[in-house]
């Protein structure tokens, strides 16, 4: 927390408790794989992947004001890109698959770059469109993506998806062969937990750097008033394209992580519902900030799991098939209501909850 120059007088009393909070939080996160079941670790991993993707979307939609409904397309590019780069050519489920067989770390990097390139390819269109037009044009990406995933069988495995090669770093495999650490057997979820944390940390810090520096101010200027930003000397078109590419790269990284968690790509996953979920995440958490994306992602990814897991002890939630509101439906009600409620009553998202009222300030549009 070095950059509290904004309010130096206030910073001093805040520093110590905040540092402790960070330390405690980090330790706890690092310790979790030793205590939690695979189910909860997996839920946490899904939340981490979602958080990385949501950070990317928040850069694009939250900070720069470009509505994107095609985020899941870039996740798919990342997930499938990783499989193609790292996978071996060969037959799987009676289908001939193409793979380049590269080292997995390189495949991760290339998959992220590929997602960025896909974003770059779309940016001529993105650069010409605004607001709702851009939102619905990006919806086209999802339909194109689904079509390709189901039809380009030798790359994607078609409806079957394809096996995701195990991530391997410096000879350490993130697979299900058990490694016993401190009497706790480590499977793929425990190992991936740390990879996910690392990816989220790097992604989060980088995005925070972008948002807090010059580019972030330029992006917000574009969001708030595109033409004024241009007049002030912000290269609007270049920024918009660059943010689109960056956001796609985040989605690509999230896609790689999702693929590693699933251990197999499922084409149905990368559809419109997922893209809408990402939009819900950034709105619920808070637009334009890294923390907002992370909180929103945790909320959207964990809520259904919690409701389902504790459905037995929750009032008003009935067992599936008994005619009442099922856990699946209950979580959809809550999640829909959360979007509406947050926007109406908590503009700024859940992350605003912890900010003292004094520091809250809003700005009227010029």
């Amino acid at each position, binding site marked *: 927390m070095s950059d509290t120059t904004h309010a130096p007088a206030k910073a001093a009393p805040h520093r110590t408790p905040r540092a402790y909070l960070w330390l405690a939080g980090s330790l706890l996160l690092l310790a979790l794989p030793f205590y939690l079941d695979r189910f909860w670790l997996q839920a946490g991993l899904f939340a981490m992947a979602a958080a990385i993707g949501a950070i990317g979307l928040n850069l694009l939609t939250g900070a720069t004001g470009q509505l994107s409904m095609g985020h899941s397309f870039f996740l798919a590019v990342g997930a499938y890109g990783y499989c193609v780069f790292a996978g071996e050519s060969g037959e799987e489920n009676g289908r001939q698959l193409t793979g380049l067989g590269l080292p997995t770390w390189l495949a991760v990097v290339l998959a992220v770059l590929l997602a960025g390139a896909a974003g770059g390819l779309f940016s001529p*269109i993105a650069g010409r469109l605004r607001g709702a037009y851009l939102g619905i044009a990006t919806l*086209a990406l999802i339909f194109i993506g689904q079509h390709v995933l189901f039809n380009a069988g030798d790359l994607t495995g078609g409806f079957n998806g394809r096996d995701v090669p195990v991530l391997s770093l410096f000879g350490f495999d993130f697979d299900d062969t058990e490694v016993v650490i401190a009497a706790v057997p480590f499977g793929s979820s425990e190992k991936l937990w740390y990879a996910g944390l690392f990816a989220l940390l790097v992604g989060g810090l980088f995005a925070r750097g972008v948002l807090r520096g010059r580019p972030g101010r330029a992006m917000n200027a574009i969001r708030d008033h595109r033409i004024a930003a241009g007049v002030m000397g912000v290269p609007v078109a270049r920024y918009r394209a660059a943010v689109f590419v960056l956001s796609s790269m985040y989605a690509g990284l999230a896609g790689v992580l999702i693929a590693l968690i699933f251990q197999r790509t499922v084409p149905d996953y990368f559809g419109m519902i997922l893209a809408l979920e990402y939009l*819900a995440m950034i709105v619920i958490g808070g637009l334009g900030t890294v923390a907002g994306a992370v909180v929103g992602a945790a909320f959207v990814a964990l809520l259904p799991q919690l409701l389902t897991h504790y459905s037995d002890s929750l009032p008003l939630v009935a067992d599936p098939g008994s005619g009442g509101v099922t856990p699946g439906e209950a979580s959809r009600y809550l999640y*829909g*209501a959360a979007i*509406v409620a947050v*926007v109406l009553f908590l503009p700024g998202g859940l992350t605003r909850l912890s900010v003292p009222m004094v520091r809250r300030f809003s700005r009227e549009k010029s």
Partner: protein
Amino acid sequence: MTTFVELLLGGLSMGSVYALIALGFVVIFKATEVVNFAHASLLLAGGYVTAVLHDDIGFWPALGVGIAGAAVVGSAVEYTVMRRYRGADHSVLAIVTIGVDILLTTELTRRIGTDVLALGDPWGDKLLTVGDITIAQTRVAAFVAAALLITVFLLAFRYTTWGVSMRAAAENPQTAALMGVRLGRVSLSAWAVAGSLAAVAALFLTVFPTPGLERATSLAALKAFPAAILGGLDSTTGALAGGLIVGVTESFATGYQSDLTFLGRGFGDLAPYLVMVAVLLIRPAGLFGTKELARV
């Protein structure tokens, strides 16, 4: 040749239904600058009311109640949610409508459950045959109803006080408000109109040749997105043109699937979106949309 004409007619009639849905989008967008993703659930609500009531009170009254019901749901959404938003970012409001859509759709699908509900329409599976061309009567009815409604709407938009205030609100909300246009009412009526148009569309989406209303019916509203964008989000003419283009494109892409295998099978769903992207590349505001003029 017969196939060509049949596909064309089928596409046009389907397209006119899409146009009805797209018109709803456009009306809301014009009045409030919000893209309404909750449109699918308005459609489902209208269809559901009609389907539930037609056995007891007959088809036409049920349809009337369905249209009114969807209008009420639409206005309720506007009144309880959209109006309460104090920010200025319309993308955020668009995302709110996603939340509303999730709420409404979950409730409606829970009620519909696993049923396939008939709407009790008078056309059944009867066909109209002219020469060697046959087309379902429901499709003719869809085309006629859509044409009628769209005409009525365009006229109302041009000549009634309501239409003038709506256009004024679309042009410049502040000035319109100063001139005495009640923006709240304009936006409320826009949502009501969109709801009732969606209810009519729901009828034609669920009658023959589709088996009936069920939980996935609302997905058809997705086809109206490219339709509305293609034509231009703030253009009523555009909604009509966009709907027809989407309908015809889809129909041809499906009907001539065997000749288009190099694109991969199942291309029909994708085709409208590709047309949309192509149009947007050339005309970023759609075919009939007004180009944004910026005030600094």
